[in-house]
């Protein structure tokens, strides 16, 4: 059984079709979602997390249709995400950012330090969130998402702004999350990260699902190379 199923989702902005009849699924483990810029990856995340209504199609979580539910209701069902363009609460401290998420799920605020430690930004806990480096802000978004104890975690380019060592640490974290039985969907441009840590990969191009498969299958797929290299 897959945690997430997206069925025939289409998103139109006026004349432009950003996502065109996409069907895909994600099970516990790490699922990659790759494609060139403008392929519709972030728009698809917006639809799954409930920030955008699709023009057509359904979103299912554990086989239950959640298409009509608002973002905060989906969060309570176990959907969490990070943002490609950062959405940290800039006037609050890093610690408070995580506490807001913990409190919304009625979890103890004592867990905040633990979560910051887990993603490796404990040193910034007392800093105002709009003053920390981009890489740390991305990890803060991850900690904040984890604070809701999600079963489905959508990560939008989490590694951009991280250095090599931080990226490796992040990869290990991905494996832990996967071992905890969470379904992680990863939008990522760092192909090493995708190829090394994903169990399954979906490729989007120009709003359509180009192909799906294991990292090895994707690597050898002709169409994928064309889409990326033009």
């Amino acid at each position, binding site marked *: 059984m897959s945690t997430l199923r997206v069925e025939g989702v289409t998103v139109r902005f006026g004349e432009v079709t950003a996502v065109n009849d996409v069907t895909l699924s994600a099970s516990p483990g790490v699922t990659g979602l790759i494609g060139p810029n403008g392929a519709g990856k972030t728009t698809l995340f917006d639809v799954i997390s409930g920030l955008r209504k699709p023009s057509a199609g359904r979103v299912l979580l554990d086989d239950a249709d959640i298409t009509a539910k608002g973002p905060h209701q989906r969060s309570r069902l176990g959907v969490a995400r990070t943002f490609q363009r950062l959405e940290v609460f800039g006037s609050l401290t890093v610690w408070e950012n995580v506490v807001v998420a913990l409190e919304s799920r009625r979890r103890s605020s004592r867990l905040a330090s633990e979560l910051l430690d887990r993603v490796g930004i404990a040193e910034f806990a007392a800093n105002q969130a709009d003053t920390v480096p981009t890489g740390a802000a991305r990890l803060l*978004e991850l900690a904040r998402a984890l604070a809701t104890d999600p079963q489905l975690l959508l990560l939008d380019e989490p590694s951009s702004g991280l250095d090599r060592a931080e990226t490796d640490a992040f990869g290990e974290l991905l494996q832990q999350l996967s071992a905890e039985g969470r379904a992680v969907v990863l939008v990522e441009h760092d192909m090493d990260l995708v190829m090394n840590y994903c169990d399954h990969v979906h490729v989007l191009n120009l709003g359509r699902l180009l192909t799906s498969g294991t990292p090895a299958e994707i690597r050898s797929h002709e169409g994928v190379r064309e889409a990326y290299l033009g």
Partner: protein
Amino acid sequence: MTALLAYTVFGLVTGGAYAVVAGGLVLTYSTSKVFNVGHGAIGMVMAFLYWELAENRGLPQWLALLIVVGGCAPLFGLLVERFVMRRLAGAPVGITLVAGVGVLVGLIGAAQAIWPPQARPVRPFLDQYGIHIGQSFVSGHDLVTLLCAVLVAGGLYVLLNRTRTGLAMRACVDAPELAALYGTRPDRLSALSWAIGSALAALGGILLTPVVQLDYVTMTLLVITAYTAALVGRLRSLPWTFVGALGLGLVQSYAVAYLPSSPFWIAFRAAIPALLLFVVLLAMPQSPLRIGGVRGSRGVAVPSGLATGVGAAIFLGVVLALALLVDGVVAGQLALGLVFGIVLLSMVLLTGYGGVVSLGQFTFVGVGAVTVARLGSSSPLALLAGAAVAAAIGALIALTVLRVSGLYLALATLGFAQLMDKLVLQSPIAFGVRGSLQVPKLVDSPAGQLLLAAGVFAVVGAGVLAVRRGRLGRRMIAVKDSSAACATLGVNVRWIRVWVFSLSAAIAGLAGGLFAQLRETVAASDFQLFNNLPLLLFAVIAGVTSVSGAALGGLLLMLLPVLQSGFPAFAGAAVVLLGVAAAGLARDPNGLVSWFFRAWSWRRA
């Protein structure tokens, strides 16, 4: 049938004048992304200037019109753009709104200083001409108004759609940096649109003078009607704006013709623009949660629970000493200042923490005052009842406008304030036919009043700080910074807003009750719609993010009328200064108190 025709013509003429004003508003908004709240005030001042030239100095009408619409108004638009708005490019909507309110209040102060109150009749244009359609008469002025509306509509359409300048203007809204790369000058285009916008405000204002009296506040707030028309066009579409303006003119005209003339319906008629504003806002499509970019504002440090307690004790000690030292008059004034301070505490919660700019917060003070006055008692229970009624109305307004946010939300609060003003506070429902009510005092001596106000201020202030340190405060700020992220973390963004609105309304309502029993007599004139605007300005100037800012703002707000009665010549100047200060300070929401704090910590360092 004849009557219908006459009222239709009248409606179209008024609508035409609205269209001219609204067209200017849409032009400046769509090219500079700044919604000019002061648009109506520009029209008002320019109408006074026209009176000065055409009626007082005896210039020919056409020459006066040319000087004002073709010269003074565009020049003034350029100055506002250059010295106020350009510095605010890309600033959050709250900041540009406050700057606009600053311009508005400053212009009213200037007009009052230059043209003291008196009757100022303005001759209509071409009053010796006119045509008969059937049995109804269309005056020369009406024809001029209609002609102006048609010319403005056509002119703006051609400018935006058929000229290179217009194309560049439209491009600059979406991406000024990008447009600059292609050789356009965004700042020049923005200046041009402000010049044209001001000229249209002036033209509309002058065309309306025979219909409405030349009055500072009435003319300034008349543009709420123009706002409504502009919102019909979603602040973008000129054709829809014109349709909206003509529709509004017709509805108002037919309301005069066919609604009964009992007191309620007369009040209802006056509330029609505000009602329609609500209808238009409710018909707006759900605004999607905004995604994109880190935003944070550096607030002042939040004191711990212990520090709050110590601060409150020191504050109460100082007030106690003052209560023993000063005479009754001063003690009463200080008490009033602290009551205003409590009103500003409600804005610390709503605007400072919640990021919602309210143009109608003083309305809740009126609601609290009326409740206490109507109960005929000022027992603590009556004060709490005032707070509860205000909270209920606050929740109701928040629920009504759940769909909109940002600029539209701020305009909705203004529409709400106007609605309450016309239908409740200024009608016999609130203060009876005499327009005033007696309220028994809770404490007799002025010193006692001062201690009462200080006690309530300390408790509410500590409460506001406790909210900020706690769960609700964190959520409010999180929603302000990124409502999209909040929603994906499981926070019901809309409920938070309902909470914030009703809690803040409750505080304002409590202050209203205290105000009523302090004054002993409260009247409809204490709660005029316009009072909302200086309130917002004082909040921002003194510091809308801190409790000490609220105290300072309250005392300043109390001093303003004292200053005005002591030095009437400076009354206007003081208001101008207020507006200028707000326009200048809008970028720093922490206000004057944060300067004091900074100076203090620098000295200690």
